Structure formats: C-alpha cells, structure tokens
C-alpha cells in the first residue's frame, strides 16, 4: 500500500568524500501516512544486482544532519522522520556502483501502534550510473 512512497525515482547516485567514492545512496519517503521517531523504523534493506547489502553497511538520515546505523536507530526517539521529508539511505561500499546499469531494490519497514502488522514498502528501480 505504501510501495509508491519508496525509492524516489532518479535519486540513486554514487557518493564522493575526500576525493574517493565511498558508496552510493538513494532517497525515499516513509511507508506510513505520518511522521514517526527513527526508533519506529523496523528495518531498511537494500539489494543490489541480486545481492543483499549487509545491514551494517547501511546508513540512514532523515535530514542529512545526523546519520545513523540501523542498530543505532533503534534508540533514536528524539529525531523524527517527517512525513514530507525525503530521507537518504546510503550504502557504504568502496568505489560505489560501477558505471552502467544496476538493479537496486529498497525495502522500508515501519511499525505503528494500532495496525498489528508492520508497514513494509518495496520498490525496485533500474539505475544508470555514469
């Protein structure tokens, strides 16, 4: 039901820091209809070209100010992912994605207080890296 919120089209790109490509990132909206603190994100998962990205290589930020690992996020109750905020999911990978076409699948899963099942959204996009 919230699949369309996941993985904003055209946002996947390599990330350069200190003259080196340290990984790649993409933007996504929340799989819910309201803001929640980051501790209520059940998990984020990325699969690139059929290969699952290790959870410890994923970083998340709702606002590009504070970045968290998935394990750290479970205790972040003072920072919210606002409903209209395009958050960033970054994958740490030396060299990033090679130039050419890649298939990137993003899963965002949140939990809510009154819906018994977590709200999972999925989106696969074909990404062009130049």
């Amino acid at each position: 039901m919230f699949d369309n919120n996941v993985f904003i089209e055209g946002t996947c790109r390599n990330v350069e820091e200190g003259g080196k490509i340290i990984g790649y990132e993409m933007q996504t909206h929340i799989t819910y209809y309201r803001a929640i603190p980051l501790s209520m994100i059940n998990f984020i998962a990325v699969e690139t070209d059929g290969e699952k990205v290790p959870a410890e290589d994923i970083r998340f930020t709702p606002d590009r100010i504070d970045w968290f690992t998935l394990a750290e996020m479970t205790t972040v109750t003072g920072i919210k992912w606002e409903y209209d905020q395009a958050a960033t999911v970054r994958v740490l990978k030396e060299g990033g994605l090679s130039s050419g076409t890649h298939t990137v699948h993003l899963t965002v899963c949140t939990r809510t207080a009154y819906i018994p099942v977590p709200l999972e959204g999925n989106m696969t996009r074909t990404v062009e890296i130049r």
Partner: protein
Amino acid sequence: MSRIKRSVSLYSLQYQYMTGKMSLEDIFRYMKELGVEGIEILPDQMLHGTPEPEEETYREWNRLVEKYDLALACDDVFLNTNLYMNRTLTKRECVALIRKEIVMAHRLGFKVIRLVSMVPAWILEPCLAEAERNDVTLCIEIHGGLGFGVPKTEEFLAEMLRLNSPYIGIVPDTSLFCRRVPRVVDNYCRTLYGTNDEIIAYADKTYENGSDMFALGEGRGLDMDPTLKSLIRDPKKDFFYAHNLSGYENRPLSCMDPYVKYIRHFHFKLYEMTEEGTENSMDYGEVLRYLHEHGYDGYVSTEYEGNRWVLPDRPIPEREQVEKHQALLKRELLKIQGQ
C-alpha cells in the same frame, strides 16, 4: 435547531503534500475556495516536531488560520506505544505523551482530539484535568474492524461512561456502515495480487445479505470467518484481501444509540466517489438523517482513503474525490436541514 457542518480532513490530500505539489498554505487556500467550514489535521503528518513543535511552526499555523478564516474541527492524535522495539511504553510514559498532545491541540486552537483506535482506556482519568484546563475533549475513534465489539474500544467506552465527563467522547467513522465492499479494494487486489474471483464474489454476497466479515469473524471471537478462510486458495494472492475485509462493517445505525450524545466529530470516510456523484460503498444520506434526528451539530469530515487503493504509478485523484465528496455532503445536508 441543530445544524451539521462540513469539514475536510487534510489527510485526504496527503500525497499532494508529501510530494510537494501543495504546501500547507496551498491546502488552506484550496479549502477556502471549496467553501469548507472546518478542517481536521494530523499534526504528525503536516506539522514538524509534533507534539512539541518550534514556536515558528505555531506562528505560521496561526497566520494561516487567521488569513483563511477556517474553523478547526478536529486534531487527530496518535500514541506511539511501541516507540521501542523491545518493550511497550509504560502507563506514565503514555499519559505524558497524551498530555503533550492536549497542550499542543489547545495551542493550535482545537477543541476536539481524535485518539486513534487502540489507545488504552486508562489514559483517560490521569489526562482529564489537562483536558479540562485546555478545554479539549478526548475522543476515541470508532472505526470499522477496530470499534464496537473490540475489547480495547469497549474498555474505552466503559471508562467513558464511568467518568461521564463532557471532555470525553467518540469519533465514529462511516466505515462502520459499508453496504458493500469498496469496489476499488476488489479491483486493487484482483489486479495487483491476483486475488481469486470466488473469494471476492463470496465477500460481495455477504454484504448483500446484510452481514460483513467482521461480524462473521472477529465479532464472533474467531480470527476469520471460516468460509472466507476456506476460500484462501493461495495466501500470496488471497490473504491480504481476506484479512483486510474486517475493516468494512455493515452495521445498523442503531449501534450508535447508546453513545449518540458522546459523538463530538464524525469521519465521513470515502473510498470512491462514482461518476454519479455517490460513494460506491456507503449511503451518507442515512447516516446524516440519523445524526440530524439525534440533534448532532458537529462536523462531518471528508476522509479520503481511496488513495490506498490506487494502482502503482497511477495518479491519485485526491482533489477530484474531495470536491465530489463535499458536493455530495452539501447536497444531502441541504435535503435534510435546508442548509
């Protein structure tokens, strides 16, 4: 003479807002253009930092309310009881959160809070003084599948009767009065998941016969109606459809009789406005007549939820649906109360 008023829950325009097509000011302006009397909002959706936003957020809110001169019908509040993955919030933590929401509602100018279904009844007594001080009424939502006959909601209703305060009430939702399964739900599940025709036909028939899947399932203490369950041929294709049906109840209006004086606001949920200008699964005329006959003079609020049932990559017709729905409410209210 009582007069029912029209409002729109800004929830109905959530994708316009999320994708940046409409700012909060654009939405206020649009509401004014539509001639809506009041608005309802989920602060968690459109006001950053809820329940303790920055002063700038309040200043901007006050500016918009003053400029567009819209009445504030209802503030939709949530309680994150599962804030942490390893435990549920304690009673003290829950009460503290609801108190913050009451203060925020008052600062925004709301007099009615809709508490989402499943908020525990025990928050009421410890929050009552704060509600009185801020002149805000705490109302539980009575939604299809989560309302009458559901233990947590029944506990809330019992506590409401016990405390008998003008600051505690209910917000019913028209999903209690679905006379058929919303067509958009059938189409969505058939197209996207390949849900089998037999299970869809069985569900449709059940509503035609005046019953519903909540009454045959959870309402009888079962996890699901046994016949419905037997028609799940392939869980991947059929389970979601079957499980979701309990949210559409087919109750008589008389289920509200014992609680009618506690109604402070009313969600007029819609799934699909048809070409003919009616809603596909509900008859608002009967609900409005009931409310009018019982002297209700609060708001009836457009809550578009067909947005969930638009197929991927199709445009969501939020504005069109809201406009048609408001036109329908206006027409029906004119028949019943002359304005």
